[in-house]
């Protein structure tokens, strides 16, 4: 049995930023219960049901009322949460979980092995149309050994399973709630989890009201304190506009905001009365161009490499984000233990060479607008960016790259904001050309699989895909040994970058700005995003 397997991660890390941002003398104070807090967030979740939601920003809200089976620590270790301990069989196919016996759902139902089994089976059932079903592809069945013991059996080893169980997407809901039908997406008390806050009400377009769960005794292993949350109530307000969010915080209408645009950072960073916090870039993938290398002209590796190296990505990222995010070298986040650090400095910003290989590839002509042409056709690739995912000035960054490629190479990188529906259709037919994205937090191998693996965006044309890349990713997913998995994931990242199947742009992170009286803000390692408000308290000024 291999218990509590984990990877030791490099020192430093995301929490440095936290320490930097918090002004001195804070630590002397004792947490104080009571009060209420207003949190301005960027995104109004389309659905509050964790098992269905695919919006990463929805999890900031959902985490407050939903717990997971296990907790992922900042150092990559898995800590107890609703499960107190677990064992994994040597073949990696059987997991035995021991559960807490003192947990109740918000609707009064008892949490036990039966409830847990119901959750997994419910998610797995296709008729329930749960997005989280993707995380349980290897899941076969669960057996209730006792009210506090559950055995999960897999069809094949899955190195990403604990990661999946720590994910909020497999958050545990009351079976009664799940059985109640299709309304869980719209939140409210009916959406009963076990979290530190109870979902009191939802006003569409405005806010979510949360109330402290007085019974809460089962905080995750990484929590700063046990017992109920400090805050009496919390209000999550949806403020989709940058300027509006910043304005709301600076004019005292909210206490905390998430999503601060670069030019607004100076408003809060180092300013008296405010604090500014930067989250880790480990769980989600970096913002990356995924290139459909089965469609001309991107089927020519020289075109892809020219695209990869033709622009000054570091300069652009600096220019657009003013130093608040880092330029990316791989699509796996730099603070992820599976990040291939060797890729740093290995590519990019070489217009001379990019021009040379384009000449070599036959794109030698120029049209009236100065773009390269070959056989009368312009060297052009379209970036189809689904509108719902456009945020964080990412379209601006793409426009910047667009301008550079045009100037440096005569390469026509088109940006088109498309609808999500159009993207879905393109994906079904593998007619997309470049898809820019960051992917939901998951196990690194799983992330690779979902993005550039056989099951990734290219799946409709997987027959024409890169077999070597697919092999590496599949092997990594099945690996039971961490070191072996790490090597395979590294190799897959290297292949993807070398072949320019992807062009990583920057490592996204969450940023919080808050009044300096708000204490205990932190980020959840599994999500990169702000943790629940369980540890947050308000200092008197």
């Amino acid at each position, binding site marked *: 049995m291999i218990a509590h397997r984990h990877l030791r991660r490099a020192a430093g890390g995301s929490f440095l930023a936290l320490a930097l941002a918090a002004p001195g003398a804070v630590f002397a104070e004792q947490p104080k219960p009571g009060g209420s807090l207003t949190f301005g967030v960027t995104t*109004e979740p*389309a*659905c509050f*049901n964790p098992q*269905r939601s*695919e919006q990463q920003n929805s999890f900031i809200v959902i985490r407050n009322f939903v717990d997971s089976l296990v907790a992922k620590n900042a150092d990559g270790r898995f800590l107890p949460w609703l499960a107190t301990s677990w064992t994994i069989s040597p073949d990696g196919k059987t997991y035995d979980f021991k559960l807490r016996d003192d947990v109740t759902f918000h609707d009064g139902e008892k949490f036990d092995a039966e409830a847990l089994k119901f959750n997994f089976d419910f998610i797995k059932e*296709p*008729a*329930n*149309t*749960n*997005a989280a*079903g993707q995380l349980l592809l290897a899941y076969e069945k669960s057996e209730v050994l006792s009210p506090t013991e559950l055995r999960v059996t897999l069809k094949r080893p899955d190195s990403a399973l604990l990661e999946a169980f720590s994910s909020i997407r497999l958050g545990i809901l009351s079976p009664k709630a799940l059985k109640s039908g*299709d*309304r869980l*997406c*719209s939140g409210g008390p009916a959406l009963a989890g076990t979290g530190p806050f109870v979902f009191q009400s939802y*006003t*569409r*377009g*405005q806010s979510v009201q949360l109330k402290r769960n007085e019974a809460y005794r089962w905080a995750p292993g990484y929590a700063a304190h046990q017992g109920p949350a400090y805050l009496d109530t919390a209000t999550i*307000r*949806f*403020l*989709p*506009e940058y*300027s*509006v969010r910043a*304005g*709301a915080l600076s*004019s005292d*209408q909210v206490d905390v905001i998430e999503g601060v645009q670069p030019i607004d950072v100076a408003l809060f960073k180092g300013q008296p009365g405010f604090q500014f916090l930067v989250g880790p870039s480990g769980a989600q993938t970096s913002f990356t161009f995924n290139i459909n290398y089965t469609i001309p002209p991107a089927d020519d590796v020289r075109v892809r490499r020219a695209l990869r190296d033709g622009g000054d990505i570091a300069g652009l990222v600096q220019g657009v984000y003013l130093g608040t995010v880092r330029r990316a070298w791989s699509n796996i986040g730099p603070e992820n233990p599976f990040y291939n650090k060797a890729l740093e400095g290995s590519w990019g910003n070489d217009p001379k060479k990019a021009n040379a290989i384009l000449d070599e590839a036959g794109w030698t002509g120029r049209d009236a607008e100065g773009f390269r042409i070959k056989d009368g056709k312009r060297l052009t690739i379209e970036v189809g960016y689904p*509108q*719902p995912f456009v945020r964080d000035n990412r379209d601006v960054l793409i426009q910047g790259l667009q301008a550079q490629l045009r100037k440096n190479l005569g390469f026509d990188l088109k940006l088109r904001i498309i*609808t*999500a*529906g*159009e993207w*879905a*259709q393109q994906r079904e037919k593998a007619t997309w050309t470049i898809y820019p994205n960051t992917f939901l937090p998951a196990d690194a191998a799983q992330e690779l699989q979902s993005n550039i693996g056989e099951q990734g965006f290219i799946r409709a044309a997987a027959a024409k895909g890169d077999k070597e890349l697919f092999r590496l990713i599949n092997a990594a997913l099945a690996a039971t040994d961490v070191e072996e998995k790490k090597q395979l994931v590294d190799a897959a990242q290297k292949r993807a970058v070398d072949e320019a199947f992807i062009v990583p742009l920057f490592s996204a992170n969450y940023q919080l700005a808050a009044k300096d009286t708000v204490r205990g803000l932190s980020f959840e390692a599994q999500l990169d995003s702000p943790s629940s408000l369980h540890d947050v308290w308000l200092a008197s000024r």
Partner: protein
Amino acid sequence: MSARPLLRRVAARLATSILVAWGSVTTAFVALHALPGKIEDILAGDLEYPGLREAIAAEWGLDRSLPEQYVDFVARIASCDFGVSYVLRQPVVEIVGSQVWPTVQLAAAAGALALVLAVLAATLTAGRGPLARGVASTVELVCASAPVFWIGILLLMAFSFTLRWFPVSGAQNWKSLVLPAVALALPTAGLLAQVLREAMEKTLEQPFIVTARARGLGETLIRVRHVLRHAALPAVTLGGWMIGGLLGGAVITEKVFGRPGLGAVTLNAVLTHDVPVVLAVVLLAAFIHVAASTLLDVVYLAIDPRLRAQ
């Protein structure tokens, strides 16, 4: 004497609104079927789950013949069942219903404000010296010609960011309604004031105004008692158009000020291809518009006895 034509007009209006509803529902049905791609895909919009398409096909009865589907579609919408948003996974009626109030609040506040501003501007400047008229009509022209979102941005810049008099966003209290309502009201007010003043000046040249002056009435009294009612007639005619403008403008204004309401819901629905929601909002807006127009017709008849006689 006056009730019958009134009833007839209201009845005609209602008939029109039923026609409008039927026409738009039919158009929507035809559009759904005429579009390239399968209806399941169109309705699924953004998201994709295993089993989703099958669920949609079952719910919309896509296995049946087109006439059957059409009858079913019309019947469902007639019973206010707009189905389920597959993107938001909630009944459309709930989604839209919860958002109507803030939008109506905004549109109504803006409409009232526009009315007050326009009446004041027109009454104070109609037929007055060239300077007052020149200034007023220039201001009105600018208001009527400036995009509502630009006005909103300028207002935010001045009163929220710089002066900090009003909150930046939201729908928490009356204060948060001020700037959006002003932004939405100004273009309408500009246009309305122009129409009103034009009408007032025409009215002021009417013989019965001379008659009224000859009875010793003062200028203000003449404007309030005689002129305003006449000037209201063309303004009321404009009313239906204005309500449409206010509803449409509210969508944009809500976006600028980050207010909740139909605007945010609709825009999201458009961007996520959430056809059921968009359809419901559009039909609702048409309904509000028609209802308001009917009301305006009644107002028109109440003001002008000459129409009642016909």
